[in-house]
């Protein structure tokens, strides 16, 4: 193999879906070193047949948990990065609820250094809003921003203290980075392990009402209005949250939101089908069919500009505990594309360009990250997707250490078949190359 500088790739006759440039057409894409090249006279490109495949630049998952430092039995930066490459992602945002919590600039810097050394996926870290995620004092958000943090969240916990939330939102206007709220009133969710509704009442499992989320979203939207702050709502799952987002939109507030694939694909009926197996336990919980349809509609209408996995790997020993005792979370990176394809593409609910906007331009905008799209000189970050591939989910084959997926055994359509980061293949044919 020739050295990196001399290597070039030519992806021929591929359907380019580039939401950054608003392009959906059959093209040839060439890669020169670590950048996108221009149509050139060079003859030594290695050709790759792109017929029947889609090529999407810079897929980013802005909500993942890589668990390092502190919980490496669940995942670490390397296993998480390999899972991202396998799932077709060229970039991720890591959540800071590790041990210790990512709340100082050196830890932000350290994650990016690790990512560069591995060369598997770009890591854009999220820092904590409060020191130690304790919800008491603001962390040093400016210094973390300078070190590379692209947003701030106490994810896993909500910022319950409205005064602290006001301060964080107010401060975000000086940083240009969003405050990402895990919206949950902990008093209302105490003891809850699944969606509060007919099925929780039948199964005798503690309920989490949708309103435990939406009351916080409404509060935060009001605080965004008060401060002019940049608010991003993580993993929305409640009709009331959607109404708050609409209200924010009408008032031109700087408020955005994301939804997770499992909330678009599954409902609380899955908890019954899995018969108390905690593989279905996730926070926010799987909701009803009515809410699922509202979330799909909100994605189609653009009210929700981001889809993010909330990839939450856990060790199998923990996920096999009794339902109340097992941790919340679904390992989601490696089923992401198949899941959103199965929800939106199979029935043609949305155009490919609009769907992938929510995994490219959408999150880049929310986080204030620039990527020019597939233009000469841009970093060669893209994913090849086979839109026709049908496959059956098997968590045991995940690159992630978290094998916990309620999609186990589910037939999905659409799968990433190759991922390139900075001009190097990180995955081809479901095999991670690093």
């Amino acid at each position: 193999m020739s050295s990196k500088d001399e290597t070039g790739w030519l992806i021929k006759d591929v359907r380019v879906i580039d939401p950054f440039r608003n392009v959906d057409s059959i093209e040839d894409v060439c890669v020169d070193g670590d950048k996108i090249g221009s149509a050139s006279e060079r003859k030594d490109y290695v050709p790759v047949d792109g017929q029947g495949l889609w090529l999407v630049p810079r897929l980013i998952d802005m909500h993942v948990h890589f668990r390092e430092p502190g919980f490496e039995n669940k995942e670490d930066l390397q296993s998480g990065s390999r899972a991202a490459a396998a799932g077709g992602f060229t970039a991720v945002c890591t959540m800071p609820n590790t041990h210790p919590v990512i709340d100082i600039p050196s830890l932000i810097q350290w994650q990016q250094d690790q990512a560069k050394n591995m060369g598997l996926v770009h890591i854009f870290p999220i820092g904590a809003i409060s020191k130690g995620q304790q919800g008491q004092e603001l962390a040093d958000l400016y210094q973390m921003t300078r070190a590379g943090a692209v947003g701030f969240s106490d994810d896993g916990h909500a910022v319950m203290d409205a005064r602290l939330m006001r301060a964080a939102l107010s401060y975000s206007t000086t940083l240009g980075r969003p405050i990402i709220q895990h919206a949950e009133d902990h008093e209302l969710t105490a003891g809850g392990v699944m969606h509060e509704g007919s099925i929780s009442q039948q199964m005798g499992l503690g309920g989490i009402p949708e309103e435990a989320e939406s009351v916080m979203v409404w509060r935060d939207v009001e605080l965004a209005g008060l401060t002019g702050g940049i608010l991003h709502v993580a993993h929305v799952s409640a009709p009331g949250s959607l109404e708050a987002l609409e209200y924010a939109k009408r008032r031109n507030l700087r408020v955005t939101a994301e939804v997770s694939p499992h909330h678009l694909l599954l409902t609380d009926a899955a908890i019954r089908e899995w018969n108390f197996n905690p593989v279905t336990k996730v926070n926010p919980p799987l909701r009803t069919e009515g809410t699922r349809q509202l979330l799909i509609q909100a994605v189609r209408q653009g009210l929700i500009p981001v889809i993010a996995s909330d990839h939450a790997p856990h060790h199998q020993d923990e996920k096999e505990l009794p339902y109340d005792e097992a941790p919340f979370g679904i390992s989601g990176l490696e089923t992401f594309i198949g899941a959103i394809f199965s929800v939106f593409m199979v029935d043609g609910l949305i155009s490919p360009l609009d769907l992938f906007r929510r995994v490219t331009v959408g999150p880049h905008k929310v986080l204030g990250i620039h990527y020019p799209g597939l233009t000469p000189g841009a970093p060669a970050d893209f994913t090849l997707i086979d839109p026709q591939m049908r496959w059956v989910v098997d968590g045991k084959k995940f690159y992630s250490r978290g094998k916990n997926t309620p999609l186990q055994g589910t037939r999905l359509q659409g799968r990433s078949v190759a991922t390139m980061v900075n001009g190097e293949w990180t995955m081809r044919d479901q095999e991670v190359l690093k």
Partner: protein
Amino acid sequence: MQDLLDLESLSKQDIIGLLDLSQNMVEILDRPIKKVPTLRGKAIVNLFFEPSTRTRNSFELAAKYLSADVINVQKSGSSVEKGETLWDTARNLAEMAVDGVVVRHQVSGVPQQLADILDVPVINAGDGSHEHPTQGLLDALTITQAKGSLAGLKVAIIGDVLHSRVARSDIWVFLALGADVVVSGPPALLPQKYEEFGVEVTADLHRALTDADVIQVLRLQRERQSSKELPSLWEYHLRWGITSHSLSWAHPDAIVLHPGPQNRGVEIDSEIIESSRSRILPQVRNGVAVRMAVLFRLLGGGHDE
């Protein structure tokens, strides 16, 4: 029937079969010498992760009257306290050639999860807020003995229905046998969605008790107060307590049940417990009979195998 995990999934036929068998067992309990050799040579583990006097002893006596050997494993002093998972505890016990596992656990679904990994029958002796199937059966048996049949009766279940595994099992078995079921208590402690299954849900005790033939009074767990769901126990008693006054709204022949243990003066007055309306002690006796029937059906090569 391989296990007894819940009453929700049991057919009416299975329920009637178990109740008939239970009635036969009641007759054994009335004999001067109660021990029958039916389960001689069988071993049963009572695996109780939650404190219990009545249910554990009831299962133990039921097994002993059928001549089975019984061991009791409780959380305190067990290897679970040393960090072993309960699945491993159960697997190890099952490996000691036991023929059945009776399990109580504070988390809903544990018996279901156990049944997935064990080859021997698993009997749910109460899981979290989910179900307590032998309680549901013994309540149905007690009502049947008093009223002949559940069909067409109005049964009122009063109290913290939302967190009650007894209520859940009761509801399924009462509905299956043709009763009209109404639940009443503070709104925050009622499963509002049960209206979908044809259960009347009302905070109005008067409405719930009017013309009721059977009143099942649930134990009020005192922690409901600290968890902000209730004002004082006295106020609870005033609005949802079963007293001679509230009982006067029910059918004159109405009977009163309580799964025990009772908080006298909270959910029910002493004078009701001790009145001729009370079927609380027969419930306890029937509990042994029902558990004998269940053990016999699952372990004794019952007629449906």
